[in-house]
């Protein structure tokens, strides 16, 4: 009986993929929560994979802001990091692989080793005072090929701040005014599919994604009329996007939508959907997303109980 249900779910996931070139298969119950817990815990963050394939998920747990899972989805450990790592990435630059995170509740950026040791902090005082507005509300960061760190004030004024690899302020662009006119620029990423790399902005308030050059010069819109793009990840020529109003989408390098996964029948945007109301393979409010090293997709949701979904690349 359960095999039948799994097969049906696979068919549903496949039928949601609109392009012939790429298809995904939903993997039910992939994550095994920490011992003693039925779910992973209050989620309002991000998910990322290191070069070894381990999976990092941020949760709002005091002094245990990141949970680490193996490739098989089994819990390994928690890292003693702040509980408000709203956005983070794992990148290799300089002396190895590090986790760069925007700490929403403490208005700062941290760079950590993968064991959770903080090796650098960009404090509030390093941000230009005239762009802080009523207070920074930092939602994500990423690292450019030259080591520059891009940080977005996504719940604040949607400015994008650029810092050198050592954490010194260099420049700022974006914000609510011309030319980008951003509103709730929820997360920004460095899109290395292009040479030179670009900045990819999830302009969630306007339901669009857009590209700029690394200096902030507008290149163009990637897509509009989305279900509120919240986060993204890249693998090869593909980009996957978490749309918080109830969809996961996959895009090619020509900005063409090639797959939709887990689409909620009706739009949603809340952390309040209880586990009893979760449906296998159907998202609630996608908030963070990543490809793993093999092109499979992992998504984490804005959800008080915490939820991670996985789709495997159908080869």
């Amino acid at each position, binding site marked *: 009986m359960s095999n039948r249900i799994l097969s049906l779910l696979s068919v549903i996931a496949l039928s949601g993929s609109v392009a012939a070139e790429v298809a995904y298969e939903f993997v039910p119950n992939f994550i095994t929560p920490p011992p003693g817990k039925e779910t992973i815990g209050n989620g309002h963050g991000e998910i990322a994979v290191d070069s070894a394939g381990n999976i990092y998920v941020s949760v709002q747990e005091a002094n245990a802001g990141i949970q680490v899972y193996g490739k098989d989805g089994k819990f390994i450990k928690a890292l003693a990091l702040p509980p408000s790592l709203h956005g983070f990435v794992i990148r290799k630059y300089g002396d190895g692989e590090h986790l760069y995170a925007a700490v929403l*509740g403490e*208005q700062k950026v941290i760079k950590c080793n993968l064991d959770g040791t903080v090796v650098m902090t960009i404090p509030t005082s390093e941000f230009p005072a005239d762009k802080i507005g*009523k207070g920074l509300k930092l939602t994500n960061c990423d690292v450019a090929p030259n080591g520059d760190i891009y940080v977005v004030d996504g719940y604040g004024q949607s400015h994008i701040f650029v810092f050198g690899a050592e954490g010194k302020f260099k420049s700022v662009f974006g914000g609510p005014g011309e030319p980008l006119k951003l509103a*709730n620029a929820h997360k920004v990423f460095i899109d290395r599919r292009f040479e030179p790399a670009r900045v990819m902005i999830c302009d969630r308030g*306007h339901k669009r994604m857009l590209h700029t050059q690394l200096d902030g010069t507008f290149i163009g819109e990637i897509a509009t*009329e989305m279900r509120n793009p919240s986060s993204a990840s890249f693998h090869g020529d593909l980009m996957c996007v978490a749309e918080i109003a109830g969809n996961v989408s996959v895009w090619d390098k020509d900005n063409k939508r090639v797959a939709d996964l887990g689409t909620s029948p009706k739009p949603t*945007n*809340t*952390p309040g959907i209880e586990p009893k109301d979760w449906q296998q393979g159907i998202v609630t409010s996608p908030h963070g997303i990543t490809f793993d090293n093999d092109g499979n997709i992992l998504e984490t949701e804005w959800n008080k109980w915490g939820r991670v979904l996985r789709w495997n690349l159908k080869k």
Partner: protein
Amino acid sequence: MRAARSILILAAGGAVLAPLCAFGHGAEFLSAKLTLLPNAEVLLEITADYGGNPLIADEAVAREALIDPIRLRRDETLVLLTELSAASVTQHDNWAEFAPASYLPSDTEAQPHTLITAAWRWRSKTPEIVFEMPKGKLHDVLLWTRDQTNPDAPPKWMLLLAGDRSKAIAVHWQPWWQRWQTVMASSVFVLALGYFVSRNFTLRQRTL
């Protein structure tokens, strides 16, 4: 270790605790509570949170968002709410009354909510109403209804993004024959009453 952390927190004058309470955010939509009243009357109360919605920076933006948040579709035209009735506007901090439980903002218990609600009340000319979000609208609208006759039932909701149209919502509408039935029944009653009075009055005259 815990003791040391507590001392550190105290030494910082609670500065560590404050951010811990502040990393949530409020609703990223306008909450539109729809109440269906007798005789095809409709009450629509739309609430904006300028304390927690990242898209609403201050009171002025909240008030602007409530000027034309959603429209009523009537045949092929979209009707402004202000054409249906004048809005009454109130300020308060009571989210629980103006959003369904599963949509209440989370992790913001320590944050004051600063809410503005605009209310429109009108009598529907049709048995069903449909709302629509014009394209290009910045603020999503959570349209939800509570069944007044069954308050324990979970409210029905739909999140409308720019360009979306709601399902048709039935108002408490009396079909024409029912309204005629009422009129006829009233008429018969009046006639019967008149006949009864007239007859009794006549009898009294005869007795006299």
